[in-house]
């Protein structure tokens, strides 16, 4: 189409020499041990400071357990996260932004039913200024009436946008279907709740819940881990309380009612979301479970992706992965498919769940997921931001940098039998609950025929 003379596809696909052998892997150097300090400040805040001086930056992540069972809690918490950086006694909103900008810095806040997270970074030689702003916000956020009023309006509009996203709709349906009215299900607050939140409620929630005891601060970058602890004692010394940050009540174990078909009239694509109980990183069987998940749908070369994307073209992306909540874990399977492909995609998704237990990964397939687990840990933690995220995920469940350093050896030691056992135990199709959100008029009779599917709105 673009050149007058070109070779045919067959000519392009072969050379005189013919196919060539895949080169072997070379020798792998291990990641250097990183100097770090893992300690607790006098106010009860756990701090993990890691020196990784690849670029002159510092990445910061502050994780505060932030649960609440009041019906308005999600709305108040959302307004708090939107306004925590809009002013203190010492700095107004514009001054906070300007001060951070001048040090190449940023701080953002996000909240969900489990925790409040502040994420930030700055040029390393400006770390004292960054920490000063952070401490100021934690101890002195003022939540001015006019800032609250304005952010509430924006939030109401943004919630409207968010609720039209298929993935938000599917996530909300999944949460309700699997956990009923547990506080964990209230991820996106109701617009009408946000509208009635008062500044007094936001200030009271900060007072009651933005607490150091039980929280974790991770700092990764071009810093001195020992010296920074002393700086933090000074900057965060005024942030104190006898009480501990509020943890989410334990989630009930998933035992799996039927998959729920949630109608979304006229949708051109469906969201398949399945979920089953597993075990967290602290469990001795986690490494085997991790490898079983990779083989199922946890990476691109997995059985699920090869089946429903690469062989059948039902989906652009299919994936399975863990969701960790406090001390528990589930595995989630996600795929978005064209309406016509939805029923066959669910059939194949369940088929692969069953096959994982009956014909478990072994040989090359097992070695592939093993190498991927070890190698992807190496690449994902090679940047400051990647390492900070990984360390935070560990620290929030009580683990530390040792877990990261020891995990490659744990993965290397997993046997085929252990993976087979994890596959049979945790990936059995009957353990999975979930939702399919899509055009029920087209999907209903086919999905019901597959069995273990009911139609309706989530509870």
């Amino acid at each position, binding site marked *: 189409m673009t050149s007058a003379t070109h070779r045919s596809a067959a000519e392009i696909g072969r050379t005189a020499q013919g196919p060539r052998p895949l080169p072997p892997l070379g020798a*792998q150097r291990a990641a250097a041990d990183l100097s770090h300090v893992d300690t607790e400040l006098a106010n009860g805040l756990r701090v993990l400071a890691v020196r990784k001086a690849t670029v002159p930056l510092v990445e910061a992540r502050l994780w505060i357990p932030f649960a609440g069972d009041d019906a308005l809690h999600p709305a108040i918490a959302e307004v708090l996260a939107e306004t925590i950086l809009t002013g203190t006694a010492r700095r107004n909103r514009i001054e906070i932004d300007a001060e951070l900008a*001048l040090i190449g810095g940023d701080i953002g806040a996000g909240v969900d039913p489990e925790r409040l997270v502040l994420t930030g970074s700055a040029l390393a030689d400006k770390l004292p200024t960054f920490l000063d702003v952070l401490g100021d916000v934690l101890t002195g956020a003022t939540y001015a009436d006019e800032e609250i009023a304005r952010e509430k309006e924006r939030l109401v509009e943004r919630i409207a946008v968010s609720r039209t996203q298929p993935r938000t709709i599917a996530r909300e349906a999944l949460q309700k279907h699997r956990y009923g009215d547990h506080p964990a299900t209230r991820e996106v607050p109701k617009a009408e709740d946000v509208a009635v939140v008062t500044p007094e409620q936001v200030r009271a929630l900060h007072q009651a819940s933005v607490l150091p005891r039980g929280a974790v601060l991770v700092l990764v970058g071009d810093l001195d881990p020992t010296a920074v602890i002393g700086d933090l004692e000074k900057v965060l010394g005024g942030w104190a309380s006898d009480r501990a940050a509020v943890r989410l009540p334990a989630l009930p174990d998933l035992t799996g009612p039927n998959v729920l078909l949630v109608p979304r009239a006229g949708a051109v694509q469906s969201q398949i979301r399945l979920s089953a109980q597993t075990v967290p990183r602290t469990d001795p069987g986690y490494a085997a479970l991790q490898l079983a998940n990779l083989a199922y749908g946890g990476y691109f070369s997995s059985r699920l992706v090869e089946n429903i994307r690469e062989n059948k073209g039902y989906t652009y992306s299919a994936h399975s992965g863990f969701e960790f909540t406090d001390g528990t874990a589930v595995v989630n399977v996600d795929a978005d498919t064209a309406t016509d492909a939805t029923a066959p995609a669910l059939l194949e998704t369940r088929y692969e769940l069953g096959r994982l237990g009956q014909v478990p990964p072994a040989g090359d397939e097992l070695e592939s997921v093993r190498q991927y687990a070890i190698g992807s840990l190496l690449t994902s933690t090679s940047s400051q931001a990647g390492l900070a995220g990984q360390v935070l995920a560990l620290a929030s469940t009580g683990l530390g940098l040792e877990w990261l350093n020891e995990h490659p050896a744990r993965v290397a030691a997993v046997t085929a039998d252990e993976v087979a056992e994890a596959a049979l135990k945790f990936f059995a199709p009957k353990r999975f609950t979930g939702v399919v959100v899509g055009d029920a008029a087209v999907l209903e009779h086919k999905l019901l025929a597959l069995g273990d599917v009911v139609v309706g709105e989530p509870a």
Partner: protein
Amino acid sequence: MADPELVRYTLDNGLRVVLAPDATAPVVGVSVHYDVGFRSEPEGRTGFAHLFEHLMFQGSESLEKLAHFRHVQSSGGTFNGSTHPDYTDYFEVLPSAALERALFLEADRMRAPKLTAENLANQIDVVKEEIRLNVLNRPYGGFPWITLPPVLYSTFPNAHNGYGGFEDLESATVEDCAAFFDTYYSPANAVLTVAGDFEVGAAKDLIEKHFGDVPHRPAPERPSFAEPLPTTELQGETIDPHAPLPALGIGYRMPDPINDVDGYLAYLVLAGVLTDGDGSRLQQRLVHREPLVVDIGAGAGLFGPFEARDPDTFTITLIHPHEVPRERVLAALDDELEKLAETPPDEQELRKVTARWTASLHSEHDRLVSRTLALGSFELLYGDASLVYRLADRMSAVTAEAVSAAAKSLRPDARAVLVVKPASEGNNEQ
């Protein structure tokens, strides 16, 4: 920031090579950038460059279908590819022990990809699902990168949908694939980049071993995509069935990104002055003070800066409540641009933007995949990978007067305004 060691050379077959050793972590990044993007698609074949990108993962002479993914991942690596207006990139990040494998995989598909009818049909289905996921089934899907260009530009290369229409995708043939490959995927039309933990001499040997016998084919003549500037305000409208609120995409032309780098950088600083952070001008006025919009952003390039040759687009996108008339939003925007055109930004305003840029460039370079891709795309588009390391300094040197002049050029009578209407409003709004 001092220039890290950078080695650049060209193989006999025309393949340009960039080596950027860095031993701070035992991982390597490998990328190949081909000098063809969706602006080079012929009429009737919209989306073809991106569809072809998918096919390059579907097997080659030495690798069965699916083998590419398996070999990268079973070496502990990650991979992907992406299609831009003016180039297409392919990349892997792996533990350093897998460097030779990555070079082998890229060389094999540069030499002899397997282009089959079965794989083409399968990937047409996958790409259609990708479009449903990212465009058809979500609010503001394809806004503004698909929907704004047809308003601002008048020629097919600049105006058409790079994801492609389903009819065009479905009518693509294996013959089209063969012609596209032979025309655009020659080593002389590509840049190979290796960054991370390796030894330069050994890497050079491996590159010669695997890429050295890929036969030379001449690089195609690169056409100009130049278009005259708009002489009036261009207007367009789309109905978005999923959008809950109206949106505006405003597109302006900018200086030639390649031949006027400093002029282009002035627009990047301008974007920061306008919308970067609570203290920026448009955030302050349109989001916080008045407030007229829910969200607003400004930037260079439809996918980000430095990813296209001339012509390139400066965009302002915003979402606003139903009850705010768009004329009010545009009037406030023009008013702020006029103020900036009359009075250059102060020194602190500039320092805020450039300090954040400096930090974000450091952060980007810290992620090996971003560093590898940036070196490759700068070598391809600018003929100079090392420019990546000088961007922060060049940006800090942009003057207040240059930013003011850039603001002055963003005139209402030389721009495109795309109106996105929620389906509920139909055509009867306001």
